[in-house]
């Protein structure tokens, strides 16, 4: 029985499976299942039933998202599938693994998604710096065309799909799905207002689905092995497996495929080998730079969307960033703030003008010029940059480490003010 559907073919010590080897390893089976007579509506129902949630960060149910695409004869016929392969969230390194390690899996996932919404064209929006992934994907795409899995009338279903591999010119905001669409259209990547959602008016005004790489890689297993199998994978309340990573000063940082519901402690201590000798865990961001700090007391929580949500943070990308007791939390948050300030698209006021102020204040803290007044301004910005106040979720993402950092590491901020220096240096 397959227990690691995402990584079963991945062995980074050799090149990824080519088309033939991939097929031999039960690859593209899902399309054969579909070709036996599943309608798009059948596939949609199956994905809904699987309980798959988006792995791009927001954890939105994938089937539900697809169901908003207007279908039928009256609807716009041209639809698009877009793969969000822009992975730029600080501390996140999971999609890279999938694309470099098993590119055909992504293509198979794309076929399923595109079939469901009857999109004849798909774009992979790949981070520009991912040269290895670019090569691997382009090779896989070419092979899939040659193998009859892309192009016209795939497996006699009458369904056509073309995939274009697009590399980004680089900017974190391009990961935001509507900004991504603008970037694909060759425009400045400012996000778009929602509604209308991309499912209704997306790429070039046509119905469009944007999904994360990992989300799509879940699909082949679901179609091939069925719902029951998929539901049997988890140890917790959310379904499937999840790529989980650990970075920071642990013994063996890395990225692994784990059943959802795995305790965080297991990830940190068994997989990542625990903290480096002489260091203690002070806290961690559970799912990339846009999540709230959790503390050592949270180690026994399980990797579940709701569980981590209840603890005040988010599972998001599932890649943890570890803060140890010899690293300055003020500096760490400051580093994130510099990132967010620089990566703001510059469209809405709080993000564009609020984050640079926050960044300047962290610079002052770093250089021993922090003041109580500035600390108060930081607190103001946690609220000011929060959800619904900005145009998109970038700035609210920044408030996650900022707000929780201020809360959990208050003494560190105060020590910086009192001693007029960074006490970790």
């Amino acid at each position, binding site marked *: 029985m397959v227990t690691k559907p995402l990584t079963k073919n991945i062995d980074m010590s050799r090149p990824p499976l080519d088309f033939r080897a991939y097929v031999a390893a039960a690859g593209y089976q899902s399309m054969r299942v579909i070709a036996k007579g599943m309608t798009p509506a059948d596939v949609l129902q199956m994905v809904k039933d699987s309980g798959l949630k988006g792995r791009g960060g927001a954890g939105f149910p994938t089937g539900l998202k697809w169901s908003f695409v207007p279908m039928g004869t009256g609807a716009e016929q041209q639809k698009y599938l877009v793969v969000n392969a822009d992975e730029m969230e600080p501390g996140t390194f999971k999609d890279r693994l999938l694309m470099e390690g098993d590119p055909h899996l992504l293509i198979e996932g794309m076929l399923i998604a595109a079939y469901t919404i009857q999109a004849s064209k798909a774009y992979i929006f790949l981070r520009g710096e991912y040269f290895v992934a670019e090569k691997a994907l382009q090779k896989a795409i070419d092979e899939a065309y040659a193998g009859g899995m892309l192009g016209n009338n795939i497996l006699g279903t009458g369904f056509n799909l073309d995939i274009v591999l697009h590399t980004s010119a680089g900017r974190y905001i391009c990961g935001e799905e509507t900004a991504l669409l603008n970037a694909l259209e060759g425009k400045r990547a400012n996000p778009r207002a929602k509604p209308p959602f991309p499912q209704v*008016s997306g790429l*070039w005004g046509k119905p469009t689905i944007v999904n994360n790489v990992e989300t799509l890689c879940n699909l082949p297993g679901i179609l091939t092995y069925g719902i029951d199998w998929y539901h049997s994978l988890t140890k917790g309340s959310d379904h499937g497996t999840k790529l989980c990573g650990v970075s920071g000063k642990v013994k063996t940082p890395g990225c692994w495929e784990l059943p959802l519901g795995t305790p965080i402690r297991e990830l940190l201590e068994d997989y990542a080998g625990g903290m480096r000798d002489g260091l203690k865990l002070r806290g961690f961001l559970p799912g990339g730079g846009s999540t709230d700090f959790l503390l050592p007391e949270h180690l026994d929580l399980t990797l579940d969307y709701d569980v981590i949500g209840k603890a005040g943070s988010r599972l998001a990308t599932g890649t943890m960033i570890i803060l140890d007791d010899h690293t300055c939390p003020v500096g760490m948050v400051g580093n994130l703030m510099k990132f967010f*300030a620089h990566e703001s698209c510059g469209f*809405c*006021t*709080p993000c564009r003008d609020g*984050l640079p102020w926050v960044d300047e204040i962290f610079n002052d803290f770093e250089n021993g010029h922090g003041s109580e*007044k500035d600390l108060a*301004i930081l607190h103001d910005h946690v609220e000011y940059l929060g959800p*619904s106040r900005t145009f998109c979720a970038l700035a609210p993402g920044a408030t996650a480490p900022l707000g929780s950092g201020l809360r959990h590491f208050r003494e560190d901020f105060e020590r910086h003010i009192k001693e007029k220096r960074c006490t970790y240096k």
Partner: protein
Amino acid sequence: MAKIVIDGKTYEVNPANNLLQECLSQGLDLPYFCWHPCMGSVGACRQCAVKQFRNAEDTKGALVMACMTPANDGAIISIEDPQAQKFRAQVIESLMISHPHDCPVCEEGGECHLQDMTQMSGHNYRRYDKKKVTHNNQYLGPFINHEMNRCITCYRCVRFYDDYAGGTDLSAQASHHHVYFGRHEEGVLESEFSGNLVEVCPTGVFTDKVFSEHYSRKWDLQTAPSVCVGCAVGCNTTPGERYGSLRRIVNRYNSEVNGYFLCDRGRFGFEFVNSDERIREAQHVVNGSSSPLTDAQVKSVFAELKSAQAIGIGSPRASNEANYALRCLVGEENFYAGMSAAEFDCVQLHIQLARDPAFHIPSVREIEQADAVLILGEDVTNVAPRIALALRQSVRNKAKELAAACKIPQWQDAAVRELAQRQNSPLCVLSPYATRLDDIASDCVIDSYAVLTNVAYAIASAIAPAAPEAKPARERAELVQRVAAQLLSARRPLIIAGSSGGAVMLRAAANIAKALQGSRHSPVDLCILAQEVNSVGLGMLAGSGQNLSAALARIARGAESRAIVLENDLFLRAEHGAVAAAIDKLEQLVVVDHIATATTQRADYLVPSTAFSEHEATYINYEGRAQLSYQVNRCHSQAQPAWRWLHTQSDMHVANLVDRCAAEAAGFAGLQAVLPDTSQFIAGMKIPRQSHRYSGRTAMKANLNVHEPKQAVDTESPMAFSMEGIPSQKNASILGAAWAPQWNSNQSISKFQAEVNGELKQGSVGALLLQKQAASGGFFSHDLLARPASNDGLQLAIAYQIFGSDELSARSPAIRERMTAPYISLSPADARSRGLAQGDEVAIADTKFTATVCIRSRMQDGTAALYCGANEIDQFSLPTQVELSKTGFNSARGMRGLIVSDLHEEGY
């Protein structure tokens, strides 16, 4: 209608709008930056946040951007909610972190939306003490200053310039808090509507460079409601004066005409008023030497002329009152329209068509409603620029339609654009050269007028078989069918024509409209462009056939030996030789004008009149809309309004004259409706032209006399030349500059509108004079232009330029910087066969004129379009077919400043 609750009070609102617009329509104060009534919402600035509650039980609520939230029935919101207030204060604090706070030296100061909103949002003390972001500024040409450090990144400039006005050379650049708005490199802003940036920008990034040259604070300007004299659209303006000179012009809202926007000719072309070429005193010229005349002497000259048979030549740039007074003086049979025969024919036909119940002459706002447009031989951008801007909105009706089908509200600006991509409503342009609207055109036919007229008649007959038949060339047959089908299936089709294509083309336009009308049983929009501010008014006053040629012929016959020319340079309107010969014949030429022209140089009696800002007057625009323009300031010279010189009765007021004209002149009934309703004035107090903050009044003339001079008394109008009085609180049409408590910028206009972007309270959109008359007969018979017999020579069309083709604005220094020398457009093949290259200077055979060669890739072979410069070439002396010979290469004179979309580049 929907009911919503705002801070506990229930309001009736329009659910098709967003909450911000509805709050403002209700007169509530809610700060905003990025939203604009004409440009919709994008949700960038976050300044308009309010609290919205899910239902009556919800006490927590959530912040929403009012501009991005529909005013749905049952919505419950709070502007005053403390969290919303706090957030708005944070937004403004944030916007101001890098703002230089240079209000004392900033030209926006005192009418700055950012100042107002800062106050309104409650941001007082700067907490930000880090480094500010600074930018470099760009040279943007003679009209606009650039001071990027003041930018608050609301994106309005590019949304206006690119999205609304179709400009391509201004963009948002860079990102995060380094976003920059400018050109890709320094240089002249190309759009004809760049001046609106001054008003669209909520702070002082884009300011009026012409104004800078002689700057004054808004509150120190004496202002009055005025009408632009730049073309026949009649946009409403507010000129500002100080120390006797006109300092600037800003837009004055009129829901039916110009709305919120002006063109650059109108905004920057006023400086002829301050020109050294103004005529300041009355003169009697004998053998080249002039002697001054007193007022009484002038009066007696006219009194004498009244009894003598004198010819009066009126002017399309003079007011109704002046033209009417001249007509009264010389008698109707001796009154001539100072327009060429061809032009006058068009104006008369224009008036006739406007009165025909089959047609409707649409206002600018109505033009924006069109969903299929056909332009016949007219370069709209250069002839009636504000209408070109309206056409850019009309093609977006397709997008709005698509959005409606997807239930996307019309004000969701970015979403609507995104959905529609490049899909536009059809717009077809028939023109002798590529025009500035081609980028939004679905079809363009570029050819000689002979061919264009044929195509036009063919479209009419494709729509209605009863129309006179015309066969288009085979390669155009498909286009003719397509355009006909587009017009037929449109909800509100629009045909545009003007005098450029002559009366033949106008008749073709009428035939097309009539053909359409046959199938829809309602009047069809037929927009006829006239050339000048009062072409229509003059056309209504002059009898049929009473054109300039007729006048010149009568003089040449020696029938009459005296003539009065009113504010008109005859050399611009007929062949120079004919004008000169006629003048030579005269014993006495009396010229009334405010500025020196070739005609005033020939005057025996030269009488100074006031310019548009120095008198009260009415003008009639292309629709037949009469509008009243108030006097802004007194003219400190001997000049008087022309009508005052011409009218023999001494105690005449404008109002009396308007009444009399309305009563006596055919077609003018209803003119008096434009006069203000004085009963609304509080306690009979006048409306001050100066603001209550007008400064320096006691000192401004102290170099001459330390006693404060008595303020001039205006006995004629409801306005006063002073700060005393009571400003109009509701009626913006008699308010110098719109102002409301807390709203010092032009955005205060919403306080005077019945609803945002709607009519001004108490109407005041002018009076439509051209009443419908009995239905006309059938189609005009088919009188195609003859195609040239031979193929030698190029068929000539006259090209217009927004900067240069208008006589008065061409005297303004800033406009001059944008003017080009005469140029002649040719196709690449025609240039090649004549051995001509881009920028060559050529002589036009059989004339004494030269022009610069402009090779354009989209010109039709065998045709040429000539721009005559500011009357550097006498267009009336030109043959219909020309040949060219190279005289030299002159790149310096070249085509500097010329903007064309299809400049041919060798080798690219």
